[in-house]
């Protein structure tokens, strides 16, 4: 069977109309929902319920403000030790345990390992992630050294 006859026999027109209608329905409704989504989210997040999802461009501002004020000044020797700690930290994973780093420092003969590690933590160069692990904050380090 060919031509219009085949189309008719297999219900071709109906299938085509149903098909295109469904596709349009789906995407039109989805576009309507999306277009309202950010308004709904703005409304919800006004009471600051979902602080977890901060918009990306707010973060840098947050970070910049904090550490600047509380940076202790470093002496030359302390800077040198900080550099040694940076080297050691690089040998660890991104999230590391403080005792592990300290242990490395002791083994490597870093000067006054405890005191200097404490200094780095206070200066925000080594920051806790709240779950027992610590991270190296390269930005803070750069501010201190240079």
């Amino acid at each position: 069977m060919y031509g219009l006859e085949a189309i008719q026999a297999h219900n071709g027109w109906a299938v085509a109309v149903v098909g295109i209608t469904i596709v349009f329905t789906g995407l039109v409704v989805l576009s309507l929902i999306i277009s309202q989504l950010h308004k709904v989210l703005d409304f919800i997040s006004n009471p600051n319920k979902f602080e977890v999802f901060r918009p990306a461009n707010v973060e840098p501002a947050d970070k910049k403000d904090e550490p600047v004020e509380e940076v202790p000044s470093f002496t030359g020797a302390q800077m040198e030790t900080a550099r040694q700690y940076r080297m050691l930290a690089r040998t660890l994973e991104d999230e590391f345990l403080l005792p592990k780093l300290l242990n490395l420092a002791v083994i490597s003969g870093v000067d006054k390992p405890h005191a200097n590690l404490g200094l780095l933590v206070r200066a925000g160069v080594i920051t806790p992630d709240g779950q027992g692990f610590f991270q190296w904050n390269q930005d803070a380090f750069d501010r201190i050294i240079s």
Partner: protein
Amino acid sequence: MDALFLEFFQNTGFYLCDYRYIIMIIIGCIFIYLGIAKHYEPLLLVPIGFGMLVGNIPIFKGLGLGIYESNSVLHYLYFGVTQGIYPPLIFLGIGAMTDFSTLLARPVLMLLGAAAQAGIFITFIGALALGFAPNEASAIGIIGGADGPTAIFLTAKLAPRLIGPIAVAAYSYMALVPVIQPPIMKLLTSREERLIRMEEPREVSKKEKVIFPIVAFLLCCFLAPAALPLLGMLCFGNLLKEAVVTERLAVAARNAIIDTATILLGLTVGASTQGDVFLTGSSVRIFVLGACSFAIATACGLLFAKLMNLFLKTKINPLLGAAGVSAVPDSARVVQHVGQQEDPTNFLLMHAMAPNVSGVIGSAIAAGVLWSLMA
């Protein structure tokens, strides 16, 4: 010993060869050439092209070499095609790569991705008219969706016999989008329309991006449950990407998983095109219908964009309609290219990504609809 030599010789490709294998090997080489030298969708044309070579080595039956022999290695790898497993895995990776920001910023552009799917259904009718059975006509129509994995998935479900020609047609025309679309785009739009600039999209929040795949999945799959394997994986991959905390899973999805699936799908789809079963009249008709479906889909997208402009206050550039056919990201690049021919400082690509990715969703829905109506 002479007998052994003779026996061996009678099993070589030189003895068993047939002109149709040679034709297919030449076509395979052309695919490889287009992929490597012309950069047309190399990630698919090269595997499919080499697969054509693999599938058209003239082999003797019985040893378990051919893709259609049940204990051959190729047959095991082809299983992922015939059962429709690779396409959802590829969609998982695509989801983990796709950024839906522009779509979220201006959802109205999603309608262009819907409009271009009309090409699927018009081609479906055409295929019926050319004498194909309804299930085959559906599989042929989906070529117009311009989405390889979707086409292979639907064909595997509805007309497995046609996987070879439909996959080859779909990927050929996707590769040829830069050749097919521009004339139609120039024909259907005026210079003024092509010069329209789009305004910068608004910033999209992280929350929106996370919620989108969930909402899109639930809505579309409630509407067309048969789109679940494809849309489920697409949205899942996108959620893994946008969630950030699951980044390592998204990395696996958009590297190891999608690349492995692409290699195996491309190779085996190519290998399924054995000359003696591939070079038939129906393959030729499928190729003709495939070309029409791309042209129609492009036209539908463009014309719908012009229609929308009648109602919209801020006009959109109707070229964006051509990106609705999917063929991500090639058709979006074509839009950019054609737009820049009129005004080199007009950057349409980012905006074209919106109809482009919604075209993927649209054709997955269309596949679901056709599957549920035909199965």
